[in-house]
């Protein structure tokens, strides 16, 4: 017999969507973090807020509209970064505050019943069947894209100039990285919300780094930490009646603290071994 939590369709959908996001977010986050693009994820999530506001105003599917908006913004940001006309951080701040401001104004025109908190912090239990199809399809494309170019992205992340020398299509991959990030962020909004999505991209990756493994193992570990945290977070939020997004992030932070301690213990033992 199924546990109580799986007897509800909305919880099943929450687990499936949560798992997809939990795999994809740290996967792309592994590249964004090293390239110091964490603020980029933040800016795109705020652009998604604007897109959701437009979707609500026009009565369209918010996941689909936020995906289109985030992809356009990602391409624009990469263009600005590549041409070096605007400093990376400045252009991100521009997108971030501009989108939030415009989104808030648009939402003020719409029916007051629009749950802004669900955009900000996610509403995983409200995922509809059509949302799930969009999340699954976009997630699959993003996953295949990352896996296909995994080695090239690894070289590019380590040393962009070296990647160019090895004949890797750096410009194309930079755009790909940005656009895939945009897709992942936009499909994550219903799951974890615009204010918390960056944490799902960054914290599992930082957690895996504490265990001092190679890049491939770190990526795998970060996905494991992320999936475990999302599953535990959803279950805990169901039984304890807590908001899922916040619960997931607190579990991620707890995992990070444990890994930090484990990493320090491992390091101390290693030095003891070398000394002896």
């Amino acid at each position: 017999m199924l546990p109580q939590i799986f007897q509800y369709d909305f919880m099943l959908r929450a687990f499936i969507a949560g798992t997809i996001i939990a795999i994809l977010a740290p996967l792309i986050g592994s590249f964004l973090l090293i390239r110091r693009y964490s603020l980029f994820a933040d800016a795109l999530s705020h652009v998604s807020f604007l897109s959701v506001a437009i979707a609500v105003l026009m009565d369209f599917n918010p996941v689909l509209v936020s995906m289109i908006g985030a992809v356009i913004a990602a391409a624009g940001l990469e263009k600005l970064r590549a041409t070096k006309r605007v400093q990376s951080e400045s252009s991100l701040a521009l997108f971030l505050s501009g989108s939030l401001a415009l989104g808030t104004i648009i939402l003020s025109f719409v029916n007051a019943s629009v749950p802004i908190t669900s955009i900000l912090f996610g509403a995983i239990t409200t995922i509809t069947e059509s949302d799930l199809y969009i999340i699954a399809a976009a997630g699959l494309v993003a996953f295949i894209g990352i896996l296909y170019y995994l080695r090239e992205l690894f070289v590019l992340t380590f040393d962009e100039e070296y990647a160019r020398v090895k004949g890797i299509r750096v410009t194309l991959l930079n755009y790909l990285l940005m656009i895939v990030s945009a897709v992942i962020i936009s499909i994550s909004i219903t799951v974890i919300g615009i204010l918390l999505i960056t944490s799902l991209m960054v914290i599992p990756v930082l957690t895996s780094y504490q265990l001092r493994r190679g890049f491939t193992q770190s990526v795998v570990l970060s996905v494991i930490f992320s999936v475990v945290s999302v599953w535990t977070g959803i279950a805990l939020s169901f039984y304890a009646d807590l908001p899922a997004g916040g619960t997931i992030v607190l579990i991620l932070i707890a995992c990070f603290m444990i890994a930090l301690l484990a990493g320090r213990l491992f390091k101390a033992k290693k030095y003891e071994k070398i000394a002896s």
Partner: protein
Amino acid sequence: MSCIDVKNLSFSYGNEVIIKSVNFEIAKGDYVGLIGQNGSGKSTLLRLILGLLKPQSGSIRLFDTPVESFREWHRIGYIPQRSGIFDQTFPATVEEIVAMGLVNARNAADRHAIQRALEVVGMERYSARQLRELSGGQQQRVLIARAIVGEPDLILLDEPVVGVDTQAQQNFYQLLQHLNKKMNITLLLISHDLDIVAHEADYLIMLNQGEVCRCTREMFVKDKKKYIAI
């Protein structure tokens, strides 16, 4: 066959002329030192050779192919300046770094090639270690392993020993001699250290105010004052 053939090459950043109608050729098996003061345009010349910059005029041919249409990048190893080349938080093992030289290393033969490259540089015992845990000299050896893993015909080195201690530098130059004399790999070593390069390389290309002067090591030793004046 020439590995690098540069003809009438000129390059400027805005109004500032960096390279002025330069000509030189590097043949297979040569060990060439490219020297010049800081800011003389050595790294710019290297970036032009690697196709990372486009010249205003002139041509560069790599293995008889114009650099713009050159695609056999596996034939060229590149060792960038060590300082600041990678983020110290980057979690990559030595084996993963060397595998970058093959870009798409996947099968057993590739793994064997990685192991062999690490053996050449004496780092085979460190394959599972993280790059950030190694000393500057060891990191440089790993980058050489990355450059040679694809069995290149030519390696370009841009100030490779900056920030590396003296003993590690000596070991590094011994390794370069091994690559050149035993493995017949052509080397173009960029440095601002005239004494070291004059001691190590067979030929010297001196870059000063956008122009080059080429001589053999023997010519340089015989008429050192003249060349230093240049």
